[in-house]
């Protein structure tokens, strides 16, 4: 049986999400570097795998899959029974996991990724940070994190008392906020969010991935 192949880049948050999930599930894989700086993700060879030209894309035998949040759901289901359980045990628990996965995708990721783009990626390409845009998105993220603070004061992890995909999905973006973006105070100023971040970011599965990300 061929190993699962991950096409991606070690700096890409979406790739990191998938690698972390593979580590949590104790699944071996082959990593195929997609050289983003040279535009490899927009070339015909990669577009044949992923017509949207974004990373990562995963191949598991006959199945080719893109969208990191779909990939981690697939892995969590396929490898149920080995490594960390990431989906919850009952229908209600699974629903809450999915709810907080959606919150990450709809409310946390947009402002976090805008902050990353404006403060790190755009300047790297010679662009100038738009401070007004950064300000607006810090405001949005602050409002979201206030709600997380309230939630995590009542619940050890987002979906309940168990670590799940919902928490895992937050790792890559928060890592960059705290390091490259230098916005760690968003996290450290909130008692329960801070404790949650300390907890989830010190998991060995995440540390292995974070090691390869730029600081």
């Amino acid at each position, binding site marked *: 049986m061929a190993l699962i192949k991950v096409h991606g880049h070690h700096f890409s948050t979406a790739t990191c999400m998938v690698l972390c999930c593979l580590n949590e599930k104790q699944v071996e894989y082959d990593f195929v570097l997609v050289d983003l700086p040279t535009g490899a993700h927009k070339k015909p060879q990669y577009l044949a795998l992923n017509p949207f030209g974004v990373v990562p894309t995963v191949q598991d035998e006959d*199945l080719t899959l893109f969208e990191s*949040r*779909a990939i981690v759901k697939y892995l969590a*289901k*396929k490898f149920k029974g080995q490594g960390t359980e990431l989906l919850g045990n009952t229908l209600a628990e699974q629903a809450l996991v999915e*709810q907080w996965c*959606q919150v990450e*995708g709809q409310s946390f990721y947009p402002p976090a990724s805008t902050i990353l783009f404006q403060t790190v990626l755009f300047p790297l390409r010679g662009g100038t940070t738009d401070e007004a845009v950064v300000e607006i998105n810090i405001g949005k993220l602050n409002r979201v994190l206030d709600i997380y603070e309230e939630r995590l004061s009542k619940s050890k992890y987002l979906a309940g008392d168990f670590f799940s995909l919902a928490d895992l999905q937050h790792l890559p973006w928060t890592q960059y906020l705290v390091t490259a973006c230098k916005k760690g105070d968003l996290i450290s100023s909130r008692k329960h969010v801070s404790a949650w971040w300390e907890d989830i970011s010190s998991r060995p599965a995440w540390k292995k991935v974070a090691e390869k990300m730029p600081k």
Partner: protein
Amino acid sequence: MAAVKLYGPLASTATSRALACLLEKQVEYQLIPVDLKKREQKKPGFLAMQPFGQVPVLQDGALTLFESRAIVRYIAEKYAAQGTIGLLGKSLAERAVIEQWMEVESQTYNPPSSFLVFQLAFAPLWGIPQNQTEIAKNEKKFSNVLDVYEKRLSESKYLAGDEFSIADLSHLPNTEYIVKATGKAELITSRKYVNAWWENISSRDSWKKIREMSKADSKK
């Protein structure tokens, strides 16, 4: 009294997304309107259910659930044996491809289309000035996305394969507004396979019912 309660206005795309799934699965429900104009969703009673102050919210017995795409998955799982079968695929691999297209809707189709819907359909109604530069940008973005959909749907009857799934369902609300309320219907209708897919999925009983309910609502 139905055990399942859905809180939200029918006009909200997220609410109609959840409702479409309840209808496909033939689940008895109660639709409880939320008055967004009066900012009911930001009042303490609602925030106690949904701390982000957004619609819809589902209550099913002891479970309170928000985020329409989480509600869709929950309803499709819990009521798997009734109504339209196969919304989640028949194997792990089929389910994975459905999840992939659900995420494409959520991350790639939704942002530019909902921006266009807000700017072109709602901003004029509410006296909010339009941003023409951003409208043009999002129209280009949405066009590029639809080109990928056109290729996909030329090879596959539905997004994830041969059967209608929650991936197609998730696209109904935004596309309805694009086609009916923005003056940009040709984004959909000018693409042969996207148009055929749209005609197909929007003529399902569940979506016809939502159209009837919307019509009745607008006459109140």
